[in-house]
């Protein structure tokens, strides 16, 4: 980052993604010296706090006979510590800028996989594969309808051949 950073910025701390991007592009300064590390530190600490909170009632036992709550609490505390270290360093030193996120592949790949998870048991393998390929296709540069249909058909047929006929797995094929 070229410009020196100082004190608490008066700039609004808006949405993390777009705001940092714009500021970086216009050459202005970001409100945090290492936004990426700050987010990482907070995420790590959040996992630790979550673990401690979920395990708040579990018995820890004594050192001579540790119970089920001992290890989770130990790891949870270490995570909070690690998160605090990363966060603290992010506030004191310069670090990497906020990255750009590939929202499109992230959303569509996840949606496609979730759709498969939801449909494979109820609708069967062939429809689930077709839905997976159809939604997944939106994650990159979409294929034209004809190649897309051919690809989906080939994959569905290949899966049935390999997993149902070849390996003999008890899978539902059609709705």
């Amino acid at each position: 980052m070229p410009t020196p950073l100082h004190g608490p910025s008066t700039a609004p701390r808006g949405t993390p993604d777009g705001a940092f991007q714009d500021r970086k592009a216009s050459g202005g300064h970001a409100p945090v010296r290492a936004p990426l590390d700050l987010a990482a530190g907070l995420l790590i600490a959040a996992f630790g706090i979550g673990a401690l909170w979920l395990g708040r009632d579990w018995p820890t036992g004594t050192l001579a006979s540790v119970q089920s709550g001992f290890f989770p609490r130990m790891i949870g505390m270490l995570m909070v510590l690690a998160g605090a270290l990363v966060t603290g360093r992010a506030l004191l030193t310069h670090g990497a800028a906020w990255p750009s996120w590939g929202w499109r592949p992230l959303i569509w790949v996840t949606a496609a996989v979730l759709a498969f998870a939801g449909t494979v048991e109820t609708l069967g393998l062939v429809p689930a594969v077709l839905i997976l390929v159809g939604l997944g296709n939106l994650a990159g540069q979409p294929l034209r309808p004809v190649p897309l249909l051919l690809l989906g058909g080939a994959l569905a047929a290949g899966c049935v051949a390999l997993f149902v006929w070849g390996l003999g797995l008890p899978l539902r094929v059609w709705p």
Partner: protein
Amino acid sequence: MDLLGNLLLGLSVSLSPDNLLLCFGGALIGTLIGVLPGLGPTATVAMLLPLTFYLPPVGALIMLAGIFYGSQYGGSATAILVNLPGESSSVVTCLDGHAMARQGRAGVALATAALASLFAGIVTTILIAVAGPPLAGVALAFGPAEYVSLMLLGLIGAVTLAHGSVVKAIAMILLGLLLSMVGTDVNSGDTRFTFGLPQLYDGIDFVPLAMGLFGLAEIISSLEQTGGAGQTTARIASLWPKREDVRQAWPATVRGTVMGALLGILPGGGATLGSFAAYSLEKKVSRHPERFGHGAIEGVAAPEAANNAASQACFIPMLSLGIPPNAIMALMIGAMTIHGITPGPQIMAKQPELFWGMIASMLIGNVILVILNLPMIGLWVRLLRVPYGYLFPAILVFCCIGTYTLNNSGFNVLLMALFGVLGYALRKLDCEPAPLMLGFVLGPMLEENLGRALLLSGGDPTVFATRPISGSLLATAALLLILMVMPSVRRRRDEAFKDD
């Protein structure tokens, strides 16, 4: 000689027609997937794990090992042909390998990579056969306290020798340990972190975690970078190195092999460190260091030998101590557990045909890889030209079905999607998912041995420091951590991972 007898036993296992076919199939499929840009060995092994569920244990491990070195080799092909490293250990291969490809010597670079890997693979396999049994003998004397310290040393070693922030890497290990606790606690029967979901009572399955963190997250990252277009690949004229090339490449191969094997045994060492170190060593010993980066054949031979040597040397701690030094070995341990095999010192005594069969199959696999790859380079080139838009839906389908058929549960696919998002977010936040995998695999073992060591000592936590072996392991771990915090060492470590 005992070693010879053992190797013969291993050869008789791995040369059986079934196992030979599995070894061949593993190397072929591994290369096929490994060639695809953006899918490194870890993702490849994670994705292909379900293929091996229906095999007998020995065959499954032979096939997985084949997949592993096949994908390692496939990654080098991508690095040379399109200048895209499949994973961090082939980053340095890009430098001179792709420079050679631009000079029309892609075939020579690929052949050099294959032959250097073959040499390194054979040498390291023999090293595993020699070093494994004594190490396992030492490990048999280990009590719970020693195991805890050894695991800590392994985990600390893994984070200090990897690149990136040490604290973040430790945090990722801790996250892996947390995830490993999900489910029913074996000692008390209490359920932990299950959110009341009965599907989580048996814990998180290893496959959706690995596929999500590595497979899905890598697909998303590749799509973000390429948008789904195909790659333009370098042309291949001649495959065979000239006499001058061989003269330059072979000493580099030997140096790379030694470097890689040494660094591979260290916890956390692995292929990346090996290839980077070998490359900088070559640059130092060369009389013409200015040639590097402009197509020096030593710059391909040394790192390729080193990453193959290192990735096979990783099997030593995995097989003899049951401690995975990196994420891929963690995957292998996961696969063994699925087949009901507990990795560790007992394997060699109780299941010699498994241990030696796997080792002998590495010898054979390395040979198969060269025979397979040199004539098929043209095919890999064509595969690289297939637009990613056609490839990634196929990979997605494979990931989904593989996870689903684990126990016919859509819940595992859902988990995989969640871990895909987590893996992508962690990558964006500069947190490597590999230490997470290590923590996840070692978690149950660590918790169990920690509890047992404390029980045996009557609740005295100093037991870890006062028992001699345990104490020296811990001291080594502490030393590593202290070294890492020292600024001068840190700077040198950062330099070692710079790619020029």
